[in-house]
């Protein structure tokens, strides 16, 4: 059986001094997934990096949820374009004389 690494939402919110409602909004927007076990809510550890990023965008940079959604989408697009550039650059190397 695979081990799941879960972080309690409540603990996360206390540690970051943020409202639980913010996490619920992120979930409603589909930006994060929440796991519920024994009436407690958790996020998987591999989502922590993203979640902390959303917290910084919202609380430190004053970007609202719609803005975060847009940024998230655009960063994903940038990521795929960077991958594509890498592949194309590697293809170009076939024609380089080194």
């Amino acid at each position, binding site marked *: 059986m695979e081990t799941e690494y879960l972080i309690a939402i409540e603990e996360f919110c206390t540690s970051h001094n943020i409202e639980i409602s913010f996490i619920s909004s992120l979930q409603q927007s589909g930006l994060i997934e929440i796991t519920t076990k024994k009436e407690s809510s958790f996020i998987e550890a591999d989502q*922590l*990096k993203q979640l902390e990023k959303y917290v*910084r*965008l919202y609380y430190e*940079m004053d970007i609202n949820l719609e803005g975060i959604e847009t940024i998230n989408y655009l960063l994903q697009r940038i990521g795929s374009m960077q991958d594509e550039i*890498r592949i194309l650059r590697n293809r170009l*190397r*076939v024609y380089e004389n080194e």
Partner: protein
Amino acid sequence: MDFVDYYKLLGIEKTATPKEIKSAYRKLARKHHPDLNPNDKDAKRKFQQINEANEVLSDPEKRKKYDQYGKDWQHSEQFEKQQQYQNQNRPSQSGGSRYSQTQSDGDFSDFFESMFGGARGAGRSRQVKYRGEDYTTELQLELIDAYKTHKQTLNVNGEKIRITVPAGIENGQTIKIAGHGGKGINGGPDGDLYITFLISNHPDFKRSGNDLYTTVDLDLYKAVLGGEITIETLSGKVKLNVKPETQNGNKVKLKNKGFPVYKSEGQYGDLYVTYSIKIPTNLSEKQKELFNQLSEM
């Protein structure tokens, strides 16, 4: 290190209100924050400067000292004590501001660097962090190294990390080594280590995805009459049948003799061999005569 004008950095006047400072900081943070500029070292550097400026100017105490003592603000307490001492012992001297002004003209420039260290340290302690920082590094490989799965030891921030480099890794590809970044805070998980591979070009083989390309010289006689040649591949020598009447620039595909497919054991791309036909030189009289005969046939 030169004096940094925090007001200039944030693009605000010295009379800026806390609200204006916050607004200027947020505006610049939205532009330069590493979250919005992944893998951009310039943005990270710029953001650190902005953060530092905000750290000082958004704290009334620090701002007051910064405004009063300029670049030596961190040592203002020291100044103040010295000033007090001077005033007590030489009451005839004029006010402390003159004294500190004289000192700050150059005597305390050595303190400047330490001032930034202090400011950054304070900034970190104020931020709530849970997960450790991610580290990024680059690893240079030869094409032949990327051909086989192998182990390699990396030195990251003084810590030796042994990693497995899977065969078929691509130039510019980044892999994540979970938990080898910065230490987590307050019991949080450690950050990750991201390694970007830089693979040098090989003098004889070019790679495109999982396929390899090479050019082999072929003598005229074999090109005309056909025959067997032995060529080098990354997995060793292979024999190749050359068809009669092969033209210069003709290409043949050797299936599964290309590069291993990343994380797909036993799967390989193809090797494309381009023939470069070499015309014989320094012909003997006999050879020239035979070529003449051929040309007249």
